[in-house]
């Protein structure tokens, strides 16, 4: 059964992207991505207990989380099988909004700059 050819009302809809057909090779690749994400989790824990400075730890943990998000988006959510315009418009907009939220940090840090004057 294929979807994307016609709806219940007989109105044609745009053809949907299909995932690669299930096969031993595809399943092995899926499992490989899953293992890679588990390895990233293990790396996060190991790095945390190496007790680096907080700015370094935050940077490394965020970087590893972004790697996991990339793997999840591309291989589990199949973004790489969709048209490029979907990823660029949706994920691009999301990244832009999240970057704009970084305006809060100077205000959050102000408590450490406050000093009583002599």
């Amino acid at each position, binding site marked *: *059964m294929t*979807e*994307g050819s016609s709806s219940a009302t*007989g*109105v*044609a*809809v*745009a*053809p*949907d*992207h*299909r*995932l690669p*057909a*299930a096969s031993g090779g*595809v*399943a092995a690749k*899926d*499992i490989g991505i*899953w293992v890679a*994400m*588990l390895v990233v*989790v293990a790396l*996060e*824990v190991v790095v*945390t*207990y190496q007790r680096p400075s*907080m700015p370094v*730890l*935050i940077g490394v*943990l*965020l970087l*590893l*989380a972004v790697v*996991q*998000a990339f793997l*999840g*988006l591309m291989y*589990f*959510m199949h973004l790489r099988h*969709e*048209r490029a*315009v*979907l990823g660029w418009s*949706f*994920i691009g*907009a*999301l990244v832009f*909004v*999240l970057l704009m*939220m*970084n305006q*809060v*940090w100077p*205000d*959050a*840090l*102000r*408590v450490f700059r406050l000093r009583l004057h002599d």
Partner: protein
Amino acid sequence: MEAEIPLPGVHASTIEASPFAIESKKLVMWLFIIADAVTFGAILFGYGFLRVGSTNWTRPFDFSPTIVNAIVMTAILLTSSLTMLFAVRAAQAGDRSRSVRWLGVTIVLGAAFATLHLREWFKMFGEGWSPSHNPLGGTSLVGGTFFGLTGLHLLHVVGGVVAMIVVAAKYSRGSLKPGHVETTGLYWHFVDLVWMFVFPLVYLLNAR
């Protein structure tokens, strides 16, 4: 040039094919995911703001049992994403019974994640933690942000489990199509991805 879609009683040139070339339900799910990602992003930024701006923040989590429990929860959620992927592939290959079986495994893993999470919560309640109380003596914002962030994620997990139960039941009876399984899978993978940020930022950064 994009193909035009004819509609009964409507001039063909009035409707164009989707530029994303995906079904409307999948497009709506992507829009929901982006909006929800902004919600979680804002809450994570709020957590970061409060943490950076607090002078008496406390780190409540020991490696055992809390971090170990969170690692197990993370592995369960990642595994549930893999089983959901198998369910989607089986559905698209036309193997309905195999797809429903993999959906069943995903439901069990999602329920296991929620159970472990709730067990951790109740253990913390027993130690005196609440959204407005910190038994370690530091700012109560630790509990407020922890229960707020993980609670919102837990709500998504429970909602996903319920949605998968409904989709699996209807898909097994033939009243839903493979596209519905794929759309549900998109949501479940998103819930997994959100946890990939909650785990390091909320648990590991608060490890003692």
